[in-house]
């Protein structure tokens, strides 16, 4: 065996705190290491060329690259050595940057740690076996989860690219948050006017199959071959018959249903079509409020429906779809008002959230675009906007910025002036975040052209005083206490992960951060991929984003799916479990523990029962290997002997 070791300086990132030359010299002493060198930037093209040349020149058959995290560049170097004729699994990386040079202060200790870490990699690589992928067919259908603007964009782009798309939306209509907005910044164009056509496109696209009011029940399989179970929630209205005429909604006697679409700004009927532009434009009964369900009698809608679409007996239905890739665009949520007792915590009707204010501004909203106070339906003259309601507040567990509040507050201040010319807006802000194209100009316009008064400081308290609300805050620029008597207070509540985001992530086997936002493969270079092959991210599910960014990510995810599907066959990851049929005793404990059902029973000639791995289903976790008492099932590339080689390299009494 002739191992080549390449130790990267990573500029001064590694070489600054690790003596790379000494490490190379030490490694040269190791039996089996035929070549060891240090190099400025191993991942650079000349660096990779050096590896390729050394493989040829020095007749190397195994390579260790000591550099950054394998999560960063393992694939890069695997390709490098493959180009030089070695099997890609003859590569090991020693992570001497993230785990050593960046975290240790003592150069001597770092250097020793690096040498040992590289030796562990050498010990392991000497145990590595060549592995070969096999190819398998892919199902060129894509599942898009979430029918907001990001999801729709992804669905449309995939559909236009010729793929069959299954679009699953939790609520009764597609459109998401954007459908609720009145105007969009910084252009002040009508939100639904630009979104509506997209929604119609989705409905009419012959490649897109829409499941509205549906949720993901279960996902099995792997990239190229997922089996998705979708729960179609009972609407109690047969949508094949419903024409969306709205008669039922008109006649429904139950008038105090919570209006999810309008965030409860005003009540709706127990049977309703969420908004005029809804896609699909179908009615749905809310059994929590419908008298037929709560009181057991009513039946008005059933009587009145011209097509006889009402079905009180309807049950949830599970349908199965097979797809090859998944785009997750499940959107975001908002923090509850009750997290802000100092702002009234939902007790003062005239303290509302930004999205509720959007609905008040909107011509198709409950007030038909008239701004009125929820308490007394009078027009407010003084409106206070509170930014960062929850955002950047560690005490609430939300240290991050919600990204787009600064911009929509400016927009809402402008629109307030448009609607009520004699009104005065105050904006309490911490910082104005307006880095987008035309954004900063927009916030200036709100102040300069529309007279919104921006006060830099936090609002400490809001309390009612007669019909007014006193907003108490600090002006940190002037260093004074400020009190504004407001008619209406709008809180820019913090953006959170969508409700149920964690459960969905578990079904998808993707990771999410502390806040419930999905984690991308790489924050810069792989922003729409996840660590689960075949699952992509779009929109605010990954983190708070505004419309252009969400749309951009939707398209990006679609491009990733199209690229993935540009091949007819996919290559399987060969780092899967393998059974040694000579030593397997057929106890099948591995079958009990495999999380993926990837292990089958197999009868050999002569009747011996052994375990057998379905390679494409095996995800490579290795639970079977640590279950198998006789070491007969080994996860390739992480076999017992490979890990023992690493242990033995550092544990020698």
């Amino acid at each position, binding site marked *: 065996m002739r191992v080549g070791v390449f130790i990267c300086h990573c500029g001064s990132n590694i070489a600054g705190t690790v003596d790379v030359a000494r490490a190379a010299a030490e490694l040269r002493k190791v039996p089996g290491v035929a070549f060891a060198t240090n190099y400025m930037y191993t991942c650079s093209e000349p660096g990779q060329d050096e590896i390729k040349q050394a493989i040829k020149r020095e007749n190397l058959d195994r390579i260790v690259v000591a550099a950054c995290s394998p*999560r960063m560049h393992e694939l890069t170097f695997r390709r490098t050595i493959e180009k030089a004729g070695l099997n890609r699994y003859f590569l090991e990386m020693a992570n001497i940057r993230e785990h050593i040079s960046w975290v240790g202060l003592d150069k001597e200790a770092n250097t020793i740690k690096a040498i040992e870490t590289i030796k562990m990699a050498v010990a392991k690589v000497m145990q590595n076996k060549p592995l070969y992928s096999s190819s398998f067919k892919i199902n060129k259908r894509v599942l898009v989860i979430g029918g907001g603007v990001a999801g729709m964009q992804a669905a449309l782009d995939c559909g236009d690219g010729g793929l069959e798309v299954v679009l699953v939306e939790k609520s009764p209509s597609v459109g998401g948050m954007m459908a609720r907005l009145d105007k969009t910044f910084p252009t002040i164009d009508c939100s639904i006017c630009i979104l509506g056509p997209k929604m119609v496109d989705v409905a009419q696209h012959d490649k897109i199959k829409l499941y509205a009011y549906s949720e993901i029940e279960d996902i099995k399989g792997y990239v190229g071959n997922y089996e998705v179970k979708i729960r179609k929630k009972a609407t109690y209205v047969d949508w094949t018959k419903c024409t969306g005429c709205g008669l039922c909604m008109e006649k429904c006697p139950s008038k105090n249903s919570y209006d999810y679409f309008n965030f409860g700004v005003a009540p709706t009927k127990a049977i309703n079509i969420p908004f005029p532009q809804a896609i699909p434009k179908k009615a749905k009964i809310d059994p929590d409020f419908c008298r037929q369900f709560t009181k057991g009698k009513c039946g008005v809608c059933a009587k009145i429906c011209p097509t006889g679409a009402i079905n009180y007996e309807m049950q949830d239905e599970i349908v199965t779809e097979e797809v090859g890739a998944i785009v997750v665009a499940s959107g975001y949520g908002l923090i509850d008002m009750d997290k802000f007792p100092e702002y009234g915590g939902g007790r003062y009707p005239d303290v509302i959230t930004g999205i509720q204010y959007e609905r008040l501004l909107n011509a198709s909203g409950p007030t038909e675009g008239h701004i009125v106070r929820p308490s007394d339906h009078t027009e407010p003259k003084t409106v206070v906007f509170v930014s960062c309601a929850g955002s950047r507040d560690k005490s609430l567990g939300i240290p991050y910025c919600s990204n787009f509040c600064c911009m929509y507050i400016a927009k809402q201040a402008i629109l307030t002036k448009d609607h009520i010319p004699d009104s005065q807006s105050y904006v309490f802000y911490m910082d104005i975040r307006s880095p987008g194209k035309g954004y900063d100009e927009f916030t200036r316009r709100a102040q300069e052209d529309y007279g919104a008064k921006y006060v830099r400081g936090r609002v400490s308290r809001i309390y009612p005083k007669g019909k007014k609300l006193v907003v108490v805050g600090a002006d940190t620029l002037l260093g004074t206490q400020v009190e504004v008597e407001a008619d209406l207070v709008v809180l820019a509540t913090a953006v959170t992960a969508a409700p149920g985001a964690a459960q969905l*992530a578990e079904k998808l*086997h993707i*990771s999410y951060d502390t806040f419930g936002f999905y984690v991308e493969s790489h924050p810069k270079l792989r922003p729409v991929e996840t660590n689960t092959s075949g699952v992509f991210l779009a929109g605010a599910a990954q983190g708070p984003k505004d419309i252009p960014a969400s749309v951009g990510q939707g398209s990006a995810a679609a491009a990733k799916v199209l690229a993935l599907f540009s091949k007819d066959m996919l290559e399987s990851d060969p780092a899967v479990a393998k059974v040694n049929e000579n030593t397997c005793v057929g106890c099948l404990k591995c079958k009990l523990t495999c999380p993926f059902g990837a292990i089958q029973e197999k009868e050999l000639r002569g009747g011996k029962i052994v375990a057998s791995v379905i390679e494409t289903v095996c995800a490579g*976790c290795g639970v079977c290997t640590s279950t198998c008492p006789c070491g007969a099932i080994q996860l390739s590339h992480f076999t017992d002997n490979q890990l023992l080689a690493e242990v033995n390299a550092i*544990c020698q009494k």
Partner: protein
Amino acid sequence: MSEVGPKELRIVGFLCNWCSYGGADTAGVSRFKQPTDLRIIRVPCSGRVDPLFVVKALLNGADGVLVSGCHPRDCHYSDGNFYARRRLEMLKRLLPFLGIDDKRFHYTWISASEGQRWQQTVTDFTKQIHKLGPLHSGKEAQQ
């Protein structure tokens, strides 16, 4: 290997690729300084960590072993860490029966985003092992 610095003890870490190894990377990217004793072995999943690896390390010269995986429910392979939790808990309870302080073995859950938690864990565990001192006295290096 002979290069263990005089002040260092031998600590072996088994980290799952998707969460904890990533968490250690995150700590690195954030330059969260840590003691240097730990040597990291990357495994795909904490469920891959046969408790015997821990035993092997402890019997053969390690002074402490740390296993870290994804938080329960967040396993990249959905259930791997659930199995790990049972097996490692069993081992943790067995070690003192053999006369090995169970403080020498720690298993925990650290996600890819928890760089700071990783730093804290490494620092605290290393301190703990130093408090216990070396597991193997010289006389044990017998044949």
